């Protein structure tokens, strides 16, 4: 090897080392990327959902609000961790900027809203009533009745324990239950965007929505914007959420019933390979029952276009 060749090789190697180092420094994902999460490289998501003035969840931002949620994630507490302890840990991680912890924290705290506690209380009363009825229920043998009563009592104990754990949390933390996942979504985390659309709309019937109209409308609109944004950022999992949102349902959902759209999003999901079991096939089969041949063909074409636009290149 001539001296000139050695110099060229050395310069190229040096350039490669610099380039690799540069890339490692600048292209590192802002948080430990989850398999289903598409992280944004641009901060525009913060403009998506400015905190609403009358949203109790956003009205009292914690002191750490301005802190960017961009640090790597921690190992999160599992379901066996006692509720209060899990919430404390998640709170600490979320405050440190862990998006996954923030998402999980909102889910856990969603069990402590006044609305959820009322529902749990009603279920508890219903179980207590059922226990009394069960004592004389001749449809079952004494042994069967004992097992049924034991199960009901276990549920009651869980309700009581959950309620006590919730009441032990600070009022501020409970009031801001939705803020954590919202802020993670605003930082560009698409898993948080999708999660927000599910956790924020846990209404059970017309009465629930009627009693909470302004908040329900605000969360519904934000959920729609988040799902569309997650899809726009190429998060194929949003296809499932959108397909579900257009399906028939026993509970309130954010879009009007539209079998053609449900089919299109579910079909796009199958093209993107996000099927779990045969869930998307079931969605498509259910939707197809309401569509004629032409509508079905149109829905399939729409699904293909959706897939091409959102996910084909990811």
């Amino acid at each position, binding site marked *: 090897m001539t001296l000139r060749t050695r110099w*060229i090789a050395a310069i190229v190697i040096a350039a490669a080392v610099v380039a690799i180092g540069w890339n490692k420094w600048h292209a590192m994902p802002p948080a430990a990327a989850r398999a289903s999460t598409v992280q944004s490289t641009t901060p525009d998501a913060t403009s998506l959902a400015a905190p609403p003035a009358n949203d109790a969840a956003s009205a009292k931002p914690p002191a750490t609000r301005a802190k960017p949620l961009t640090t790597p994630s921690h190992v999160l507490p599992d379901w066996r961790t006692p509720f209060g302890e899990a919430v404390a840990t998640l709170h600490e991680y979320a405050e440190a900027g862990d998006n996954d912890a923030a998402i999980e924290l909102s889910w856990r705290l969603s069990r402590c809203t006044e609305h959820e506690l009322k529902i749990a209380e009603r279920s508890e009363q219903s179980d207590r009533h059922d226990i009394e009825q069960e004592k004389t229920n001749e449809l079952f043998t004494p042994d069967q009745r004992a097992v049924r009563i034991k199960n009901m009592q276990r549920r009651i104990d869980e309700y009581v324990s959950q309620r006590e754990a919730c009441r032990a949390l600070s009022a501020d933390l409970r009031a801001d239950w939705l803020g954590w996942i919202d802020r993670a979504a605003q930082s560009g985390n698409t898993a948080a965007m999708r999660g927000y659309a599910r956790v924020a709309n846990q209404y059970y*019937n017309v009465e629930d929505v009627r009693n909470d109209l302004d908040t329900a*409308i605000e969360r519904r609109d934000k959920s729609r914007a988040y799902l569309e944004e997650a899809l726009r950022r190429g998060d194929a999992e949003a296809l499932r959420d959108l397909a579900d949102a257009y399906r028939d349902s026993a509970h309130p959902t954010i879009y009007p019933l539209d079998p053609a759209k449900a089919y299109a999003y579910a079909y796009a999901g199958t093209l993107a390979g996000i099927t779990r079991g045969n869930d998307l096939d079931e969605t498509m089969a259910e939707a197809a029952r309401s569509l004629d041949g032409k509508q079905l063909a149109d829905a399939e074409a729409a699904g293909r276009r959706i897939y091409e636009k959102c996910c084909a290149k990811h």
Partner: protein
Amino acid sequence: MYRPIALVITAATAIVVAVVAWHSRKPVSPAERAPIAQESVAAKTPAREQGARTSTHKTATVATADDRPFTEIRPELERRALEGDALAARRLGLTLANCNHYTDVPDDKLEDMVVDQAARGFTAKIGDHEAQPEEILNLYKLSLRQKRRDCKGVSGLDETDAWKKAFQWIERAAALGDTDAQAMYGALAFADFTNDRNALVDADRMRDRKQLATDYLQRSLAKGDALALIQMAGRYQDGVLFPADPEKAYAYAWAYSLTTRASDVVPELLDEVLAQRAAPLDDAARERARAEGQQLAACCDLAAEKTP
């Protein structure tokens, strides 16, 4: 000897550089390509029912006092209501709301019903306490006496979606300026929102409806219609239009009881309503509520003086 090694290193380095360069380029994010259109919920103006702005009140010619059977008079009421007769529309609405499935039941049959229900484990709550069969029977009897008044001339009415139809007529009567219908509007305003699946989709319409119900109720009150007082009591009790407030609910119910309009209600039933509204309040709250009720009642025709 070194030439092949140098070539391999150079080629490998070039590939690494190319791959690194490819991955480290800044992608044009979708967000940069197209800004997000934000929905401004706050900017939306509640859409009022058009009729409420444009309808004019016509003098009613079919009075609520018409004693002909409802089935006989109904076609005429409907025709007149569609022509703009507010009283006819109101009567249709109230009859459908109050008298669907109404059948008169003799008192002894009522007792059998209650005994049968008790035997089957049926329970009911009055306020916060579990009602005794005697209390339930008493309430049944009083309610039936009220129905006999409200549903005179009505029998065999068996409508599907009676509440929805009732709301449509009440909505029309209210838009035509009938103050009783305006007072009643809030009690029926959500009758046609029954699909749980679409509750979030319908939420904007519900919000508009709620706003209109509040406006109508206050308008009816401002015009001195005492029916608005008992409806205010109901809405403060159920929390549908206003945040639930037992003291206010009692104050408005008390105010209603002081007006001549209270004679529309079976006296013992009105006493029962007052007792139920007063139950969750302590003595001081009851006193305050009665004092407030006294002032509220000034809006409307007062009956002879009443003592607590």
